[in-house]
């Protein structure tokens, strides 16, 4: 680490030699790549290629699965997140996640957004209200939600529920945002809104998105990683991956022939 090249920025999250096994099945094979701050990195690949598994390793959401074995190293700002001294709660506060299906809690809109700050110990109602307003505003939901903060969050449309999930995450002020196919359950307009939002949020956060929608990766990301059957096939700037891929498998995938 001491002989780091000065030109490359230090990666926010760095994955090295990651192997992951579900029992006998190896789901990730010697995966290594770096994610940079203030960039949107897309991970693409066919279903079952291990892209969601890789994403869930980054905030250790795979920990609870029975029979799982993880080898290798994942570093956040240079420190190993699978290390003995890593506090799981602090990690998940720093590396938050939005899931494929919007999973707003069956609580009010306000309580959903205030959930994160509350579990991290904030009780002051004025402060909470401030955070709720700021978080909802940052995902463009404040205008619609301001008059119905105490209404059940499950009453929102699917697209708005996903935005609420994002607001709920922004409220804990994470450093890295993981998006696991966040738009796959949404209509085109909500999808576009999520993509615009990613561009907005990348000013403050490191964003990593798993998607099976290649237009989405091409439109909304700075870097793209292509995975196939647990292996990282190619990783580079999005433009290069989509216009001038080095690996023939990447080329076949991005042109829709795989």
């Amino acid at each position, binding site marked *: 680490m001491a002989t780091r090249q000065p030109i490359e920025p230090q990666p926010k999250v760095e994955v090295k030699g990651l192997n992951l096994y579900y029992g006998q099945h190896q789901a990730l094979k010697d995966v290594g790549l770096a994610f940079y701050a203030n960039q949107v990195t897309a991970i693409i690949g066919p279903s079952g290629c291990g892209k969601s598994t890789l994403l869930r390793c980054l*905030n250790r*959401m795979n920990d609870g699965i029975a029979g799982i074995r993880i080898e290798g190293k994942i570093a956040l700002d240079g420190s190993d997140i699978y290390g003995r001294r890593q506090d799981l*709660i*602090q*990690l*998940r*506060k720093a590396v*938050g*996640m939005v*899931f494929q*299906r919007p*999973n*707003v*809690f*069956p*609580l009010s809109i306000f309580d959903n957004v205030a*959930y*994160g700050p*509350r*579990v*991290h110990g904030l009780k002051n109602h004025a402060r909470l209200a401030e955070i709720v307003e700021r978080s909802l505003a940052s995902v463009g939901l404040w205008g619609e939600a301001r008059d119905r903060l105490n209404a059940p969050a*499950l009453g929102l449309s699917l697209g708005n529920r996903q935005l609420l*999930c994002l607001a*709920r*995450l922004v409220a*804990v002020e994470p450093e890295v945002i993981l998006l696991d196919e966040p738009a796959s359950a949404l209509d085109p307009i909500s999808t576009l809104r999520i993509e615009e939002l990613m561009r907005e949020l990348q000013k403050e956060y490191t964003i990593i998105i798993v998607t099976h929608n290649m237009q989405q990766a091409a439109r909304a990301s700075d870097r793209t990683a292509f995975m196939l059957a647990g292996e990282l096939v190619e990783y580079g700037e999005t433009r290069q991956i989509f216009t001038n891929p080095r690996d023939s498998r990447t080329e076949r995938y991005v042109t829709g022939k795989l």
Partner: protein
Amino acid sequence: MKQEGHVAGGGRRVRLSERGVERVLTAVALSAIGVLALITVFIFIGGIPAIARTGFWPFVSGHKWAPGRDVFGIFPMIMGSLWVTVGALAIGVPLSLACAIFLSEVAPPRTARVIKPAIELLAGIPSVIYGFMGLVILVPLIRNRFGGPGFSVLASSVVLGIMILPTVISISYDALKAVPDAYRDGSLALGATRWQTISMVLLPAARSGILAAVILGMGRAIGETMAVIMVAGNATKVPGSLLDPVRTLTSNIALEMGYAAGMHRAALFGTGVILFVIIMLLSVLASYTTSARGKAR
């Protein structure tokens, strides 16, 4: 699609036997309702004369139960049922909730697979056994520890509290298990601890199921007879403390029906009417809360 094709292909004979099965099932279902209706009519016919003669209000609010002098006030028994039921819930519900949370959220699946059937087995033990255990262990313990006769509200509450465990545990366990994993993941991914996830997301999400569990447990506690008779002391007096003896509505019927005749017998049926109304109200409440949950999903 598949089924329609099958019936159409089978021709007339299949359609006829199909209709026959439907008729039989309908008849069976209706006869179950018929039995319920008969019981209701029977209890009301048996009980109304006593309630009418005493007057509804004196009957339910009267403090004196003296069958020999044709004085029938079941207020002490209503209070008795109320006391032991509330006591049973106070003891049984926290235990049950803790157990359901442990089984659903904390215990490794293998442990839960062993413990859950064991708990459900508790429901199969005859109530007289619970009563017997209460009689030989609990009653002397209370007498020596806290004074009084030992036969008491406290003893009944403890026995009933244990008896409602299987009902309340397994229904609230099911309610917790029905909460989608997406909620657990969502909460943990925000950095919440397991306990925060349980108390702030899972319990609110499972609330109506848990409420239904409590109401069904309450129904079980109110309706239980034999175990209570053995440990309650059965005095027809409104209990003044947890250590006083108590008689419940169900005990009143079971204890005296064997030798009652005439107006006395009708007054016992009247006790049944009041019990019946209370339990019906509880079931309506239970099905209302469970259907409210269905709508929320």
